[in-house]
């Protein structure tokens, strides 16, 4: 399970765009293209701001009107998938002002 204050960053080796509302991510080292659905695209967009896991959960919970538990479960699975594909880096837990309301 991911900690709420872990920071999620796009791997700087990726290339990406939001095209017609959907994120397209390329890993140039193997020329793989990864396409996301609406929610995945929104999460990828949010990763530009290098949010914590907790901040992502809070944002998706608000925007997509799903329970916090559901948002956390989906985001954790998605983040694990992105990590396995080499699209993101997980940073160390940092001391930042909490914005997700969790403790």
């Amino acid at each position, binding site marked *: 399970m991911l900690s709420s204050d872990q920071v999620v960053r796009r791997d700087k080796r990726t*290339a990406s765009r939001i095209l017609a509302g959907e994120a397209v991510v390329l890993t140039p080292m*193997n020329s793989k*293209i990864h*396409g996301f659905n609406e929610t*995945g695209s929104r999460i990828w967009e949010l990763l530009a701001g290098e949010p914590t896991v907790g901040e992502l959960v809070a944002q998706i919970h608000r925007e997509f009107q799903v329970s916090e538990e559901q948002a956390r479960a989906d985001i954790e699975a998605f983040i694990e998938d992105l990590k396995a594909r080499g699209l993101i880096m997980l940073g160390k837990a940092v001391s930042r002002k909490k914005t997700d309301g969790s403790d």
Partner: protein
Amino acid sequence: MDQTETQDNEARPNRTGLNGVQILQAKARAHDIPLHVMLELTNRCNARCRHCYIGNRSPKNELNLAEYEHILDQLAAAGTLFLVFSGGEPLMRPDFFEIATLARQKEFSFILFSNATLITSETADRLLELCPERVEISLLGGRAVTHDRITMIPGSFDKTIRGARFLIERGVSVQFKTTWMRENIAEAAEIQDLAKDMGALFRSAFLIIHKRDGSASTAELRATPDQLREMIRQSYDRREVKTVPPEPEPLNDRQKAANPCGVGQITCRIDSHGLVYPCAAVDIVLGNLRQETFNSVWHGSEELKRLRSIRIADLTECSSCELFSRCSRCAGLARMETGSLLGPSPQACIVTRAFEGFYQERRCQLQ
């Protein structure tokens, strides 16, 4: 909340029969997105290749770093994902790495076209850090004497191979590319073996476009039909798996309603002075980024609207040719050769007939 998901889409066809890049290109076409942009960073070059289309190599009035930053911002906003850094020789620009770094910070993918003669171990380290999709390197002969005669720079072959090795050793993807000419086509096997032995990819180019000053002087460099046939035969004999494509079929109405190529659809070229063109070969100026925004050119150019409206059915001579589905016709080259974007390209006709003639012989032998 929808199930979040990712889809691997690189080279593997999916249920639609299209691979990831093709799906992306279809989407870009549907939304008028300039997915691929070639940035000709400079006309300067340290080689003097006899088939090169660049005439004037002056660096005068080249776009500067700040101008490139502004252009990259505009391209990112327009949806461009894939850049090609071309030239001239891009590494002749002292600020090449600043431009490339900006591009990667703005999350573009890039391919570098280079002759690799300026790539040192330090340069290779810096390129590795930038994680290019690949570096495409012109290799014009399997032997130094041939390559150097075409580049007109003694010692260039050795420098090119050395530069390529620095990249390959670091895991940077390298693709050698050879334009087949009268002078080098007999060395096809040596060139391809060299690429394989070094761990590089390889691709061929059969068409030689005219010089941008309008001169057709490069025409004399073209391989003869006999040379092409011999090279095709040798390449076929060397293949581990020998397959012959089926007989070509005439296009149906649905196929004729498609665009002939990506010109003006999802690609464009920006030269080192900020002029925008539909592609590397079509020399029609669409706009000037020193005077107008990229968006206004891409969406406002009347010339582009005309190019986008061209359908295969409009290519009156080509669309009824039974070899069209096999043809590597280039609209820009057709325009250079005959004055018409809609006409056939005699060079492409020769190459396509050489291939199809060979395959037809094989089909007859197999029957």
